[in-house]
């Protein structure tokens, strides 16, 4: 699925300061029966967001108009659990482009990068500062600069540098994904198969 290029993002952020937010919470299993990649944003955090009668839960952060933005800030071990890519789809479809945490589950991180969400890993101390900044001002601005690999708290100008491998960075900057890349090396793949005997 093609996605929008990611260069510099300036936005407010939505804080979810709990640890181990797992993929079953991000998108419950009963929403895996779809045959299309639409509507997942509506079911993002479905059981935390809505009561069984589909009325919004007033105390859940996504239902609070004070908080909005393209950046989701989560506690440690974000995205643990099953390999369902639907979790990343739901986050993207809802409108987030960047998830910040002090630690990401492996497969989630991969899935996120594959579909155009930038996972930004910062130190636990810096994560606290981000939460603090949103607490002080829900409209606090943050700047995610992918070319420079920096995350800045605008109010205090505090900067964290984050890691991303060169290949994935190039993809995100250009809105390419692995499928585009693989298409571009098809002759090499074709040549490879000629010596494969399976």
């Amino acid at each position, binding site marked *: *699925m*093609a996605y929008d290029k990611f260069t510099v993002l300036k936005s407010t952020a939505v804080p979810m300061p709990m640890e181990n937010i797992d993929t*079953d919470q991000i998108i419950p*299993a009963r929403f*895996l*029966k*779809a*045959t*299309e*990649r639409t509507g997942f944003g509506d079911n993002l955090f479905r059981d935390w967001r809505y009561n069984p009668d589909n009325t919004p839960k007033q105390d859940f952060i996504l239902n609070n108009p004070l908080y909005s933005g393209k950046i989701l800030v989560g506690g440690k071990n974000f995205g643990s*659990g*099953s*390999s*369902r*890519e*639907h979790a990343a789809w739901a986050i993207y479809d809802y409108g987030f482009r960047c998830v910040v945490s002090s630690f990401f589950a*492996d*497969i989630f991180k*991969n*899935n996120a990068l*594959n*579909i155009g969400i930038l996972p930004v890993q910062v130190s636990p101390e810096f994560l606290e500062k981000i939460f603090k900044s949103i607490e002080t001002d829900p409209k606090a601005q943050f700047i995610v600069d992918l070319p420079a690999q920096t995350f800045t708290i605008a109010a205090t100008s505090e900067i964290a540098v984050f890691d991303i*491998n*060169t*290949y*994935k960075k190039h993809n995100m900057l250009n809105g390419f*994904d*692995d*499928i585009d*890349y*693989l*298409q571009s*090396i*098809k002759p*090499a*793949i074709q040549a*490879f*198969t000629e010596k*494969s*005997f*399976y």
Partner: protein
Amino acid sequence: MSTTPTTLFDKVWDAHVVQHIDDGPDVLFIDRHFIHEVTSPVAFLGLKNRGLSVMFPDKTFATADHNTPTINQHMPVQDPLSANQLKALEDNAAKYGISHWGLGNPKNGIVHVIGPENGITLPGMTIVCGDSHTSTHGAFGCIAFGIGTSEVEMVLSSQCIMQPKPKKMRINVHGKLGKAVLPKDVALYIISQITASGATGYFVEYAGEVFENMSMEGRMTVCNMSIEMGARGGMIAPDDTTFAYLKGREKSPKGAAWDSVLAYWKTLKSDKDATFDKELNFNAADIEPQITYGTNPGLGTGITKKIPAAAEIAGSENSYKKSLEYMGFQENELILGKKVDYVFLGSCTNGRIEDFRAFASLVKGRKKADNITAWLVPGSHIVEQQIKEEGILNILTEAGFQLRQPGCSACLAMNDDKIPAGKYAVSTSNRNFEGRQGPGSRTLLASPLVAAAAAVTGVVTDPRALMQ
């Protein structure tokens, strides 16, 4: 040629690297790709949206298993969403010329059961599927692992995926297994020792006497559970047991092709001095029949043991207590004698003929306990057929059991086979997460023998007590 000693994993991986990207992943060629109804529809949609086609339709195999009912398979599927996914799979397979063994096909069954039993899975292959238990195929000396939907689209369109190379771990189990100790117990034991994240970031090779003496079906059970210790996958070097299993299977090479491939397969083992990033050793004598009591596969122990106190468990005390609370168990309690409501024999972990033989050997001449609802679900139609031909069905029927039709069933409870909230299930599947077998369900993972002992006594029972 370099003479550096290499591992089995490196040999197979390196043979499949189409391209290495500096500070990026390897482009890995995939020999076999399995698809099913749940994780493939969006991948096909992606192909359509980009105007791409399937590069090698003959390297992908489709089966329906995750959603399918396990009774009345000749009738239309009731749940409209499931029916829709099954239809999408059938249409996509037809459109792109992919082999499809759907509901009602005599070769239909769980993806990781039908691959090996039809000789689609062969030593030294790279195999992927949008299901994490793809690690099962590692039993044949394959690099096999689960992938996300974008990667399914990659494999369909280019027969490759992009993966960073994982670290390597070898797990050796020495000696001989005791009475009633099955491959599932070996897997559950290892996970209980190293925890559910003990192998995160690694690809595991299983070695040592226990695995050398193990049947192919047993090896599949062990490799299947690799993912439950956090590993990307697990593998076992192919040997005479492997070759004997594969010879004559439908899609196994025949004649001269067999001879030449056999010579290659014999090179697929770790060199004597090959090094691993991590190596672990266990003794078979320490392993008794196992059972889990918590809500991750690492929370298990020998069946005669007590549920550990929170203080004995590494990691968060709070999440351990929450886990016991969900299960309705207390610290320091015996697990033996706990009441059981459901027994599930099946899944790609333990839904093969040896599992049904083990189960039948124990229920033979006994009766199903009145309080037990038992779901016995073969992994495939071929297994179902064997159950009938070997007289196992008669044994089961006389003991008061019924046989269902193949599918994933209560392993993930996407169809109607859901354990009701609060009920206890002794299950031969692979995951005991909260709600995995249905909202509120309480799962105790165990071997087919422990499942059989629970099925005839109605409580958690040591199978050895029934085998005097």
